[in-house]
């Protein structure tokens, strides 16, 4: 085995150990230097492996045997092919950008080294996930990224909303993992191993089996794939397990970019693409995937329209884009899904980091109603945000155009019974995406300057960071708080509130520029090999019954021709209409949106409450579980088992012995009397039986 393979995940792990465990000893500067260097090593290693794989050197082998049990051997091992290496490049590159950006963003935070420790640990876990050659290690990476996500959402652990959000994220993901684990269980039962290669090679032989689920006669592959996909629904935030992602914005912005936009949330997409030999055997599962994806793509987009928190707009946009990728998976266009995953990783990380840059510039305010006209204060952030937004809505030649248009085309050509609905969802989604993206863009960078109107005491709109520190300041005794650097920071913030916005330092803008470049170019450059060439090779399997990608290939005449063709199709005009209408509503006539809001109060309330999912979950699942647990405990354990059975037995013994004690009264006539009765009874019995 190539030692490079080991080095790529272990380098960030080492970085995590140094920054996380010995952060105090090495100090701030050395912590970030070492962490960045080691993530850089991982990126360089990924590039080297990419070149190696490009020459045809794929790898599939074990590192060590983790466990043997019941004839099955569970291994830690790597599968290095084009799919893996694509993910490795995306993960390490975005991670490197975010590491650099963090120097600027977290500059004043007390948990500086801890933060670097976490994001390096995340990089390690994500790499283990994508490089795995078996389900066990996949599950390890899967849960490990969930752990780091949990730790990072709750990074500002003094803030009640943050620690609510991280618990929620972990539990919702666990619901997904519940299905995922059962899916893995079925895989082991059917195939006797968890190694990908063996499972994939024998999958077709089990395509028509009945799943061994007593009481149901489901197809084996459908059952396995749907269970595995439930895991993906948790991790990739698909309806109805999407509820955790918007709340995850409580975490610091760099991790929103890295974890909750570019990499971790795409793990589900990657997983399904990796499992293509299984999913291809079940039309039922693919239809399920497609329906879930299209619901997510369209309905989560709507929610983006009415958000006022800059990060939440981007978060709903992420949900919607993840829906697009899922739809592509359902249409058997796995390579298209991965292609969109890649382009999305660049432009969405860019948008998040740009949002973070804006937040810093306007002194930790996140409400877009109190921004406006920022383009003249921060030109680099402005231009890069524009690039990101254009890529997101699918402007010709930008990377998002190629990936999104390919998804729409793949859905159009899909023969699944649900593809009609999916097609409607993804096409309508184009308008919605364009509308909310440019609503945000216009409100932030154009129009009247409103940054000085932000209400001071509105904690909800204030940046998480400041709220965390504020919580700290109020919670600690005054003497201690005064000593605390962070508390000083809050004061500075308030003093500086009315000050003019300013462009952020180079450590922040450099990653923006470096992400803007692929956001523009990567689609144009890679669409041909990734979708229609032999780029993925054997890594992705498509059944011969699924023609969509094949037909697209026949109609494809180069990346440039795709643009000219786009002008004759609906999506591009919908995108233009979306931008135009948001320009009209938010630049020309800002009075209209509020009028619409009043007019359609019902719809607005529905959207504002996010279709009431959170309320329902809080009431039904969280409340229900708490209520049930109290009743079970009070009634089951305390009253019934301990009260009646255990202490009841003790009481019964006590009562019985109390009665028995009376018999031993010590009076001779009591004993004589009972003797006579006894003799009488015995004699009666005796005469009866004779």
């Amino acid at each position, binding site marked *: 085995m190539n030692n490079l393979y080991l080095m790529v995940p272990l380098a960030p792990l080492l970085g995590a150990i140094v920054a996380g465990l010995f952060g105090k000893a090495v100090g701030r500067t050395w912590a970030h230097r070492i962490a960045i260097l080691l993530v850089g090593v991982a990126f360089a290693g990924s590039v080297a492996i990419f070149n190696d794989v490009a020459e045809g050197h794929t790898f599939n082998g074990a590192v060590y045997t983790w466990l*043997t049990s019941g004839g099955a051997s569970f291994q830690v091992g790597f599968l290095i092919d084009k799919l893996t290496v694509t993910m490795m490049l995306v993960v390490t590159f975005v991670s490197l950008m975010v590491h650099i950006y963090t120097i600027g963003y977290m500059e004043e935070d007390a948990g500086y080294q801890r933060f670097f420790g976490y994001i390096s640990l995340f990089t390690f876990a994500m790499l283990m996930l994508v490089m795995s050659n078996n389900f066990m290690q996949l599950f390890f990476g899967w849960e490990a990224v969930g752990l780091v996500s949990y730790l990072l959402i709750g990074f500002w652990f003094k803030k009640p909303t943050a620690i609510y959000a991280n618990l929620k994220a972990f539990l919702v993901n666990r619901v997904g993992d519940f299905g995922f684990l*059962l899916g893995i269980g*079925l895989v082991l039962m059917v195939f006797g191993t968890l190694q990908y290669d063996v499972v994939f090679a024998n999958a077709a032989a089990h395509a028509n089996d009945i799943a061994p689920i007593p009481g149901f006669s489901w197809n084996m592959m459908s059952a396995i794939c749907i269970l595995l996909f439930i895991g993906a629904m948790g991790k990739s935030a698909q309806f109805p397990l999407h509820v955790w992602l918007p709340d995850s914005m409580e975490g610091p912005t760099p991790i929103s970019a890295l974890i909750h936009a570019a990499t971790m949330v795409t793990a589900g997409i990657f997983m399904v693409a990796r499992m293509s030999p299984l999913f291809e055997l079940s039309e039922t599962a693919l239809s399920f995937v497609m329906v879930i994806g299209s619901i997510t793509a369209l309905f989560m987009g709507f929610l983006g329209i009415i958000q006022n928190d800059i990060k939440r707009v981007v978060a709903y946009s992420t949900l919607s884009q993840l829906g697009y990728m899922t739809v592509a998976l359902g249409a058997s266009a796995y390579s298209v899904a991965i292609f969109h995953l890649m382009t999305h990783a660049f432009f969405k990380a860019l948008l998040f980091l740009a949002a973070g840059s804006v937040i810093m510039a306007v002194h930790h305010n996140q409400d877009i109603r109190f921004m406006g006209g920022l383009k003249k204060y921060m030109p680099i952030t402005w231009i890069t945000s524009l690039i990101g937004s254009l890529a997101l809505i699918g402007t010709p030649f930008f990377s998002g155009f190629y990936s999104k248009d390919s998804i729409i085309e793949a859905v159009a050509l899909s023969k699944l019974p649900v593809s009609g609905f999916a097609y409607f969802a993804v096409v309508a989604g184009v308008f919605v995406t364009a509308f909310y993206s440019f609503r945000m863009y216009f409100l932030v960078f154009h129009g009247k300057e409103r940054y000085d109107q932000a209400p001071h005491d509105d904690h909800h709109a204030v940046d998480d960071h400041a709220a965390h520190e504020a919580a700290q300041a109020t919670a600690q005794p005054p003497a201690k708080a005064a000593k605390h650097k962070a508390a000083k920071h809050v004061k500075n913030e308030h003093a500086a509130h009315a000050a003019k916005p300013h462009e952020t330092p180079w450590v922040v803008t450099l990653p923006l520029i470096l992400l803007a470049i692929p956001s523009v170019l990567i689609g144009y450059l890679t669409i041909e090999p990734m979708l229609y060439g032999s780029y993925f090779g054997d890594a992705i399997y498509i059944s011969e019954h699924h023609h969509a990608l094949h037909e697209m290939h026949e109609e494809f005449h180069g990346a440039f021709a795709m643009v000219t063709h786009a002008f004759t199709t609906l999506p591009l005009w919908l995108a233009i209409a979306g931008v135009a209408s948001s320009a009209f509503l938010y630049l020309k006539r800002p009075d209209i949106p509020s009028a619409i809001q009043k007019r359609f109060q019902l719809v607005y309330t529905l959207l504002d409450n996010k279709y009431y999912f959170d309320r329902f979950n809080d009431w039904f699942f969280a409340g229900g579980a708490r209520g049930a647990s109290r009743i*079970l*405990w009070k009634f089951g354990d305390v009253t019934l088992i301990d009260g009646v059975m255990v202490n009841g037995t003790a009481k019964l013994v006590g009562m019985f012995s109390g009665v028995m004690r009376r018999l031993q009264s010590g009076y001779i006539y009591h004993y004589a009397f009972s003797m006579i009765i006894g003799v009488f009874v015995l004699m009666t019995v005796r005469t009866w039986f004779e």
Partner: protein
Amino acid sequence: MIFGLPVISVAIWLPIIFGILVLATGDDKNAPLARTLALVGATLGFLVTIPLYTGFVRDTSQMQFVEMHDWISRFNIHYHVGVDGISVLFILLTAFFTPLVVLAGWKVIEKRVAQYMACFLIMSGIMIGVFSALDSMLFYVFWESMLIPMFLIIGVWGGQNRVYAAVKFFLYTLLGSLLMLVALIYLYMQTGGSFEIQDFHRVSLPMTAQILIFIAFFLAFAVKVPMFPVHTWLPDAHVEAPTGGSVILAAIMLKVGAYGFLRFSMPIVPDASLKLAGVMIALSLIAVVYIGLVALAQSDMKKLVAYSSIAHMGFVTLGFFIFNANGMEGALLQMISHGFVSGALFLCIGVMYDRMHTRNIADYGGVANTMPVFAAFFMLFAMANVGLPGTSGFVGEFIVILGAVKVNFWYAFFAATTLVFGAAYTLWMYKRVVFGAVANHHVAELTDLVLREKLIFVILAVAVLGMGLYPLPFSEIMHVSVNDLLVHLARSKLP
């Protein structure tokens, strides 16, 4: 052999002798000497068990390191000890924890130090005796004498309601094991005058007798595990026990009950075990689901972890009674892991209790602000309790669930709910205790871990992560014995 002495006997008697020496140091004037002597004894006690692992022959299911001496020849009772792949790891686990509890009680216990330390040392020897006894009478003697030191630990150094808890613990477990004695005597007669466990394994028995014996053993073992519905003594015992007592109770004593199922119930009455497996599985799943929910309602940290222990032990009995290698090995791994994790969690609670003198979740909040190092360790052990891959808690649960799918999908379905419930009760507690702003001035005045506490947690963290990342050394030692047991189970013993 260690210095010409048989390994298992040394492992049993060395801590007991040290316990007596510690007792001999007398009253609290000599407390420092008692502590040092106890630590030396406990550490030596662990070191002498290491040859059991290194010298263990992995490709046989025969008993190893066997010692056999006459004891009470009138009834053909022997001092007969030995280990196989099933019991060997528990001896190491027991010896591993003794130095840790000695360290944990180092500063906290100020009254009757010598007696306290001696209790744990003697306890350690007795429990090793339980795991290695091959004569059922020897087993029974060790089994019952285990109660005495634990009764004292709870009753003397426990909390306010300690007498109620100690008596409940004692009576509950004693009543359970009395019928076991009857069963052993019955088997003695059936084998024609032998108390050898391995002779019991060979004797053929009619179904009615098998079922009665199974029930007798069940009462003894299920109370110890504890299985639903005979579990209510455990939360009370834990709440009142001092930290060290809770650690030993959770980490080792619960395993003794589960071990009994493997050593007695299943091989002696295989047909009854198969027949009643459905009931056992149902009770196990109730433990996972019902107890998981009950844990959610707890406001006392120790009670919460106690209920969590019951739910985790549900996985162990589930794994046993699905009768396949995955289930059984997963259950054994779960037992070891649960030893590390529950022991660590009780130590975590102990660290907070020593400083705050309350176990009530509502009295805490924001501990991470004042005890960051502690918060990191607590997070690791909480995640291990949640069964996160990479920690030991994952290994057993994962393998048991995989094994359960093979038998019946729905067993696995209900077992897997622990993914959600386990996370809910553990992390919700963690959130309320550790996260958040500093809740009150008591929390504000907390001081972080001292070196002694760090040492304990580092050792446990290495164990938890080591087993999670590389469980092979733990599992390969048990393969042959587990397979042999499964083969044995498949053979009917009906006459």
